[in-house]
């Protein structure tokens, strides 16, 4: 098992329908590009404490429809830039979901775990056993699709596509 398949971290917990507008405001989307530029603005309009307090390996846990709204990829990469290990949610908007996996940020759909996890819990996300382990118990999620697993194991969408092009 590689490190990328087992993630352990402290939880930041949020509610339902958190839009990309509060994860990474649209006003920065055409001017800030590097990880260093975007990291301080993560969740700026949702939780100003987040960017100040987040530590590498921390895990974001949320309710339904996390990442709804804009297609902006920085909604995923601003979390990666802060070292976030995974996002566990009751459900994801489809573009955020793809953006996250494409950048090797596991986006795990597990409504039971999302409901049971408390802010500040330390949890484990096991992508091989398809389990979220938290103080309230172990919760399983459906296996990753082969497409997502291929992208994750290639190190992200771009290396995956480079490999395919190289044939």
């Amino acid at each position: 098992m590689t490190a990328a398949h087992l993630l352990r971290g402290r939880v930041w917990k949020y509610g339902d329908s958190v839009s990309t507008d509060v994860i990474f405001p649209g006003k920065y989307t055409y001017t800030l590009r590097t990880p260093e530029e975007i990291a301080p603005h993560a969740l700026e309009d949702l939780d100003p404490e987040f960017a100040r307090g987040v530590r590498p390996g921390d895990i974001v846990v949320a309710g339904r429809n996390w990442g709804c709204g804009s297609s902006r990829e920085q909604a995923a990469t601003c979390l990666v830039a802060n070292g976030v290990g995974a996002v566990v949610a009751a459900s994801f908007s489809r573009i955020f979901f793809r953006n996250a996996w494409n950048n090797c940020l596991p986006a795990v759909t597990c409504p039971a775990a999302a409901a049971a996890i408390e802010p500040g819990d330390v949890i484990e996300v096991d992508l091989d056993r398809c389990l979220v382990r938290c103080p309230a118990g172990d919760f399983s999620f459906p296996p990753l699709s082969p497409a997502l697993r291929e992208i994750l194991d290639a190190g992200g969408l771009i290396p995956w596509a480079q490999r395919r092009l190289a044939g």
Partner: protein
Amino acid sequence: MAAPPRTFAQKALARAAGLAAVEVGQVVDARPDLALSHDNTAAIRQIWLRFGRERVAIPERMAITLDHAVPAPTPRHAQNHAEVRRFVAEQGITHFYEVGRGICHQVFSEEALLEPGQLILGSDSHTPHFGWMGAFGAGIGRSEMAVVWATGELWLRVPESLRIELQGTPPPWVSAKDAALHVIGALGEDGGLYASVEIAGEAVARFSLESRMALANMMAEMGAKTSYLEPDEAVFRWLAERRVRRVAREGRSGGDGEPSTAAIADEAARLQAGALYPDPGAPYTATRRFDLSAIPITVARPHRVDHTIELSDLGEVHVDQAFIGTCTNGRLEDLEIAHRILKGRRVAAGTRLLIVPASSEVLQMALARGWVEDLVASGAHFGTPGCGPCMGNHQGVLAPGEVCVSSANRNFRGRMGEPSAEIYLASPAVVAASAVLGRIASPAEVMES
């Protein structure tokens, strides 16, 4: 054995993947007919450079507008635009539209760059917009667009389909936007999550093409992967005329003279032959029916699109800024209804009315009809065709605590640049009436006074 009935999404993705048939849940390598990007083109280029190629694989299938922050509000935005122009020139991309031409979804429709039954992938979440013409349109991320540029294709999962049937005739002042807000309010902002949302029913054909665009566009706010309305003769004719004119303009002949009606009819027939329709009995996760005659004037309150309320139940809400524009409701019929309500009246003191046409074509037609003159005389101010302040970049962003009633599609916290501002979503008619009365109001109240 007869083939099982199939949804639009199954047929469109089978076509795009070059397969005879695909199943729901199947992952396919789909080749988009059009790849849409905008101000984010420069950032996508940065990612694309990782492929180490000198040329993009599909310059003829790329279409690019500058629309999200136009004209450039800061030197950094201007630099971003300059990078996009340099890339477009280097790669020989012909479908490029400069600052002022308008919003990608509107412009690519007007230019007839896409056809019914085709696939468009866009690094923009409102790409389901193209469902208005019966095309499959899905939003993707920047890395994904870089992969499309490099390889000409992208993996897509064939989605489940949700069917929404619209029947009846809406009451006075109830528009496609009210219907969309009502449907989203009823099903929830994740009510179409990941689905191909097919909007059907006898009422669809009675909506103008512009209203169909508003319906398809708004389905993105329910989480839809794509939208679909059955294309009819009106769609084929509209696209055929525009396509024949564009091809003549681009051709060596220079397009002198009017295209013949025969040429347009031939083109319409060709487009019709490429259109895709769901089979009777195709599998839907659910079918939801709505009677338009029972839909009220509807407003979405801050900060969720499904936080809807019947306008008559809203109570008094003061308006600082009224905004008519965006890919949802910045078209000619939207300016027409605003003109009807505002002509000879004044925008209320303490309220401002910003109008941003969705395209230069919309602006030109509104100018030719004298509407712009009347609207400015009423106290409205106009922005450069484009996205305007919809996503908080520039041109009419809000102050802390201000209230905006907007014809746009999103009212998330911080959307228009300021997290403590409040955005109400409504039809252009309600926005215009609200500008006159200085509070969120019904057009009936203005017209009867």
